[in-house]
């Protein structure tokens, strides 16, 4: 398809979310602003006040109510969006499960932030990882352009008749939410055309076809509903890929569920998500220039977990460092490590995996840190076995 030229503007991550939401023009937004996602709701409510969108904006008294209102509106057949972070996402917890189990395609931007205590407003993945089992599709964004692109794709993914699931678009709080970067903006009518008109399969407001959503299902049926739900999210993977390709045809920016950067012939690979991938890419370039066989695997889609794609990308490496920006106190590594290692355990050929936890509460991860990780991976190859969990950049 012909590549169109797009207008470029300088914009912050949160503002880019609000801009994408404006172009989507959802029927309902119910939200309770929280740092570091506040500007999403702030800017979007400006659009509402200025009459630039047709959205019914519901100002609620908590995040629990925000998600509840989103669920009600979505069950009624509306196109629904919201945004939150950290404690706000935590307060939504029980409603997150209801949204996904009832198969409601709500799109939520999450500006990832640490969880209290101690209270901290900066970026890490603890909030989203706390919701990793909630049945939401989770997409992680590296930079402002990806946030914007992912929000638009999320609408199309979630509303796909085969998927019908809520989608969480994640990005690093402050690091990306408040970074001003250059954004290629898609024209309003192209966004509208790309996402299409939302035709809900079922609607509580359709009085000609009365339905009951989320009824009681005890030991004779609950299990079957949960397996059906698991099947739905597992099978959203090809749809996510298809939407990523269609988005590429429109913009020239093609998206897959993972992004391989010099992994094909790499002996040492770092796995990471979101903004850290930008830093790691710099280091990979630098070390590649020095002739070192290093690579980066970026996980864009964490739910559904793209195990096959990840396995193929990693199986020929010697040592893989898995960088988790969240921790599981009482366990021996972070969530990304657990998923990848247990998923690849049965392969005949697999690398040595080294777990890392980094960047909690917004702690910087620098090119020096990433360089050190690569030297450690080299050491581990010589020793032939991994060390225990390594915390990056922590004072002893």
């Amino acid at each position, binding site marked *: 398809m012909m590549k169109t030229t797009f207008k470029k503007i300088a914009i912050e991550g949160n503002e880019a979310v609000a801009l994408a939401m404006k172009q989507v023009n959802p029927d309902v937004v119910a939200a309770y602003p929280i740092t570091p996602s506040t500007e999403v709701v702030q800017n979007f409510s400006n659009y509402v006040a200025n009459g630039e969108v047709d959205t019914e904006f519901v100002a609620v008294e908590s995040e629990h109510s925000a998600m509840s209102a989103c669920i009600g509106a979505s069950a009624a057949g509306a196109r629904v969006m919201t945004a939150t972070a950290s404690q706000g996402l935590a307060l939504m917890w029980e409603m997150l499960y209801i949204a996904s*189990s*009832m*198969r409601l395609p709500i799109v939520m931007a999450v500006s990832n932030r640490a969880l209290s205590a101690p209270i901290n407003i900066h970026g890490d993945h603890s909030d989203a990882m706390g919701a990793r089992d909630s049945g939401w599709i989770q997409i992680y964004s590296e930079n402002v352009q990806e946030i914007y692109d992912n929000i638009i794709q999320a609408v199309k993914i979630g509303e796909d008749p085969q998927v*019908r699931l809520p989608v969480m678009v994640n990005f690093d709080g402050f690091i990306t939410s408040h970074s001003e970067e250059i954004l290629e903006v898609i024209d309003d009518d192209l966004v509208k055309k790309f996402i299409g008109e939302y035709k809900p399969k*079922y609607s509580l407001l359709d009085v000609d*076809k*009365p*339905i*009951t*959503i*989320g*009824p009681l*299902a005890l030991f*004779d*049926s609950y*299990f*079957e*509903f949960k*397996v*059906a*739900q698991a*099947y*739905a999210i597992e099978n959203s993977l090809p749809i996510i890929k298809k939407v990523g390709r269609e988005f590429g045809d429109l913009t020239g920016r093609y998206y897959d569920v993972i992004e391989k950067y010099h992994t094909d012939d790499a002996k040492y690979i770092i796995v990471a998500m979101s903004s850290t991938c930008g830093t790691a890419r710099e280091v990979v370039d630098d070390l590649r220039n020095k002739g070192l066989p290093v690579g980066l695997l970026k996980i864009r889609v964490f739910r559904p977990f793209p195990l096959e794609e990840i396995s193929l990308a990693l199986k020929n490496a010697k040592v893989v460092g898995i960088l988790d920006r969240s921790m599981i106190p009482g366990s021996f590594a972070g969530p990304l490590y657990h998923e990848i290692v247990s998923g690849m355990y049965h392969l005949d050929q697999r690398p040595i995996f080294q777990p890392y936890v980094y960047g909690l509460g917004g702690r910087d991860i620098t090119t020096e840190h990433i360089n050190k990780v690569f030297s450690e991976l080299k050491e581990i190859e010589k020793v032939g076995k991994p060390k225990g969990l390594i915390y990056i950049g922590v004072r002893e």
Partner: protein
Amino acid sequence: MRLPGWKDLVETGPIILEPGNALEYKTGDWRTFRPEIDYNKCTTCMFCWLFCPDSAVKFDGKKVYIDYDYCKGCGVCASECPVKCITMKEEEK
């Protein structure tokens, strides 16, 4: 009734597509004690019909009777009956 397998539920999700089908769910087997009416004493005052929380006491135009498909055996009818013509008898296995 054949219960659906998970493959039947992927398309819809947890949704009931037809109204009024609570009728199909016979709750009578929840019952431990069964109300029985002594029609020699019954005055057809309709108190049981009025008080039954599950509308399981029916009226056929002449007398009241219990719909055992839905009566859960709570005993409200027996308790409210002013002439004590309803007795709760333990269900036999």
